[in-house]
């Protein structure tokens, strides 16, 4: 069975004793350096059951919070895309196949519960996660400081891409006469405010989520590498 009770028990047991090696030695300086800049062999991006459970819960919670709270927390008429912030963050610390399925299922949940077109968010999220994992994989795995620096690029690109796909779909459904009637207005009023607001939550979540994933990623017993 893919999700068995033994795996869940192991998840909680590991959670209590799963501190990093440098933290266990009591060296706060080394630990901080390791957390933010990473270290050789300190991070494993392989697929684990505990990571799957954690990521699924996190993505689902983000979706629920997005709909229950963040719709009312608009700034300049825009709201953050909490789901995007979470899935990009998880994908940065994951191998591409795991990221791909995470994106697919978070998108499907968004589609069936709150979306306009079935499959739209599933397709977009799947590619967002897959491309993020592929792009980050050779360089930055587990290095939070690089996540924070590269975050705006990913978030802005994906927000722009999401908007482009939505516009393209509008064109397909013969609703819009042209792809962009006011491209500057589209970027200034919609893409940039939404990307900035989303990046704020990306920053807030970067350290706790990455630390949790680092802890969970060390279980290599069920590890599958993407070569």
């Amino acid at each position, binding site marked *: 069975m893919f999700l068995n009770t033994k795996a869940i028990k192991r998840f909680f047991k590991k959670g209590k004793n799963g501190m990093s090696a440098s933290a266990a030695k009591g060296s706060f300086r080394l630990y901080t350096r390791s957390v933010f800049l990473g270290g050789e062999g300190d991070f494993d991006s392989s697929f684990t059951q505990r990571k799957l459970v954690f990521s699924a819960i996190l993505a689902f919670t983000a979706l629920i919070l997005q709909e229950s709270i963040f719709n009312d927390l608009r700034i300049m008429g825009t709201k953050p895309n909490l789901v995007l912030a979470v899935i990009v963050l998880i994908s940065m610390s994951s191998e591409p196949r795991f990221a791909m399925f995470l994106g697919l299922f978070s998108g499907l949940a968004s589609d069936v519960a*709150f979306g306009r077109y*079935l499959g739209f968010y599933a*397709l977009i999220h799947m590619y967002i996660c897959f491309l993020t994992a592929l792009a980050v994989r050779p360089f930055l795995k587990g290095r939070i400081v690089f996540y924070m620096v590269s975050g705006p690029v990913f978030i802005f690109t994906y927000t722009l891409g999401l*908007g482009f796909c939505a516009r393209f779909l509008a064109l397909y459904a013969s*609703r819009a006469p042209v792809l962009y009637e006011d491209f500057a207005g589209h970027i200034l009023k919609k893409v940039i405010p939404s990307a900035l607001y989303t990046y704020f939550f990306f920053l807030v979540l970067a350290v706790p989520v990455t630390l949790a994933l680092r802890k969970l990623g060390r279980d290599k017993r069920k590890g*599958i590498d993407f070569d």
Partner: protein
Amino acid sequence: MNKRTRITLFALVVVTILLIVTIAVSASPNGNFNAVYRVAGTPITFIANGFKKAASGISDWFSYVTSYKSVKAELSDLREKNAELPVLEDEKERLILENNELRRLLGFDDYKSEYSFISAEIVAEDVTDWFNTFTIDRGAGDGVKRGAAVISPDGLVGIITEAGLGTSKILTIVDEDNAFMCRVSRTNELVRVRGVSNETMTYELRIDRLSSSSSIEVGDRIVTADSGGVYPSGIMVGTVKSVSIDRTSGIATALVEPAVDLTLLSKVFVMTEK
């Protein structure tokens, strides 16, 4: 490239094709995924609704504690107004009777008598701002049907696109997917109105292809027309905000400000035929 990578890429291609087909069907006029929405969407919406109610309960408690003085002042003000209510109630009864009698004499059909109204609360919006959809806490079990008009006391809100078991989705009038026939109430001119809010954050409607002979003016009220077959006639849509004419083609375009402020909307009514 090893076997696992090839399988992953193959899965990516297959899932992509499947999803593109699903989106295409969903975006077509006859696309209907009500069954999927009923089975999978309703539980998620219920959980989100529960969270929203809990969050608003906490927020209400804090606002009550922090605004105690203003609540007290409001209470005394309300007590004064309450004393005037019996007089106003009598006046209202008299006006209703008079209105009904005049309508009967003029032979007007009141659409309100042909429809029943299901009150509903907005529990969610689209995950992003790219589509203007709402989710409400009433579904097929409450009598909500796909294609039913949704209104608020100020005017038209949108149309039901999916009716789940206990929740439904509304496509608002400002979404570009929502195009419908209306009348200019002053001139009775028939116009086609569509939403334009998807590209930028402006919640507006647009009337395209107005002829140069059109007498539409800023401030004209726009109401629904029954010739479109989507909405019952006579529902307030909005007010003309600006009119511009293309000098080369002679075609005029008008921008309409919706009567309903969709950013502040929390309660709506679904119109279902009796």
